[in-house]
């Protein structure tokens, strides 16, 4: 894996960084909103603004494109494409498993990669799961969490969606540690990213529509889901009893 210091960043990465920097700056300069707020979301007003922008982008661009894709490709094909993309990110999961001192997960990731890339035909199929090798989706945001770095406040990134400062750093670090963008023209990683995102979106058209429809406050529903899910990933399902008491007992 290529180290992220030293070398000049490819232009793709710089573009990503500047978008993120813009979001962060907007957050800092944002005046506090009136009324009671969630202490975990001090940037709520800005976040809601970006969330609205992302929703607009989804409604007018991403969702229609995903519907087109869904119309053309049968679901099994989309699922196979999803598996291919998942397989291609195993090296990052492997590196992060090592950084989190989880040698067993790292070895399993390696075995998954070897099996699915060969017998699984470049990752379009997932025979490793049938052999009992489960995916460990460790990323650098989780690694930082395991090392004790707190997530910081909730943060919605333009285009990328729900995040927090820790996971934003993780996103950038993981994108630097992907090797191929260093050797191909800049539109290639963009195209791959877009293809992967669209494929995922088209597999989940109904679920997202249903959740949007069902939620009383979709922004809050997504925020809660994101924060709980990431916390759970970092803790790897260990229990936090203080939280439990707060949630399940009203006395």
């Amino acid at each position, binding site marked *: 894996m290529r180290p992220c210091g030293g070398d000049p960043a490819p232009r793709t990465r710089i573009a*990503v960084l500047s978008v993120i920097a813009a979001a962060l700056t907007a957050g800092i300069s944002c005046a506090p909103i009136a*009324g*009671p707020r*969630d202490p975990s979301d001090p940037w709520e007003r800005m976040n809601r603004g970006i969330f609205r922008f992302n929703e607009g982008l989804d409604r007018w661009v991403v969702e229609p494109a995903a519907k087109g894709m869904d119309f053309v490709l049968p679901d099994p094909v989309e699922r196979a494409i999803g598996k291919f*993309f*998942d397989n*291609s*990110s195993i090296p*990052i999961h492997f590196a992060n498993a090592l950084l989190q001192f989880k040698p067993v997960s790292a070895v399993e990731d390696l075995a998954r990669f070897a099996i699915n890339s060969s017998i699984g035909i470049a990752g379009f199929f997932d025979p490793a*799961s049938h052999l009992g090798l489960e*995916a460990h*989706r460790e*990323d650098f*945001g989780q690694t930082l969490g395991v090392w004790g770095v707190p997530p910081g406040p909730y943060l919605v990134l333009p285009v*990328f*969606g729900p*995040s927090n400062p820790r*996971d934003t750093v993780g*996103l950038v670090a*993981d*994108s630097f540690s*992907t090797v*191929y*963008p260093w050797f191909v023209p800049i539109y290639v*990683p963009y195209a*791959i*990213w877009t293809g*992967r*995102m669209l494929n*995922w979106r088209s597999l*989940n058209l109904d*679920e*997202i529509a*249903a*959740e949007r429809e*069902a939620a*009383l*406050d979709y922004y*809050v*529903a*997504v*925020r*809660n*889901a*994101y924060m*709980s*899910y*990431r*916390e*759970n*990933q970092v803790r790897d*399902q260990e*229990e936090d*009893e203080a939280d*439990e*008491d707060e*949630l*399940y*007992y*009203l006395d």
Partner: protein
Amino acid sequence: MSSTTWIERKRHGLLRLVRTAMAMLVVVVVGFAAPGAGAMTESEAGARAVIAETVEQVLAVLRDKSTPTEDRIRSLEQIVYGRFDLYVMSRLVLARNWKRFSETQKAEYVEEFKRYLTNSYGSRIERYDQQEVNIIGEREEPRGDVVIQTKIVGGEFEGALVDYRLRKENGDWRVIDVVIEGISMVSNYRDQFKSIVSSGGPELLLEKLREKNAAGMVVDEASAQ
């Protein structure tokens, strides 16, 4: 590339929430892991039996393809109403705000919340019948609640982890929360309702629930035809 992975995973979290809720009403169960040998406490065994039985009842309804969808949804509702402590759930969701509701508002809120849950998840049963649920573990909490851990096998949601938290009320174990991949239903609704109650009081929350439920009924009738 990696950024995509990452974003996908995040979104995956949200989806799991939806799916969990779905699984709660809709999952078809085929295989159960054999009950763990010896180590289970009496509470754990009791709660586990409730989940196992409920899953079997749900499975029976889902397999009965000859009955009209609308009737099967009603059967699932009856199973869920009997197994879930919706009063405790509704209260936990409101947390401190519960005290801000008058007695009439409380009664209406519990009723509307119940309908809201059913409308949100009940009408989607046709899509979720290809799965199995395995009970993979159980845990007794310090204050006596029991968490039963399950895993979805097969189908679109292969591998999703769903935990059911149960509490014993008057001798019966009843579900008070469903936690999908760390995303708790109680906590998710609590955050949503908190922001609504703090901006518009109990009346605004009731209004929004009524609105959703009215819309939900229309959808149900349309899809039943």
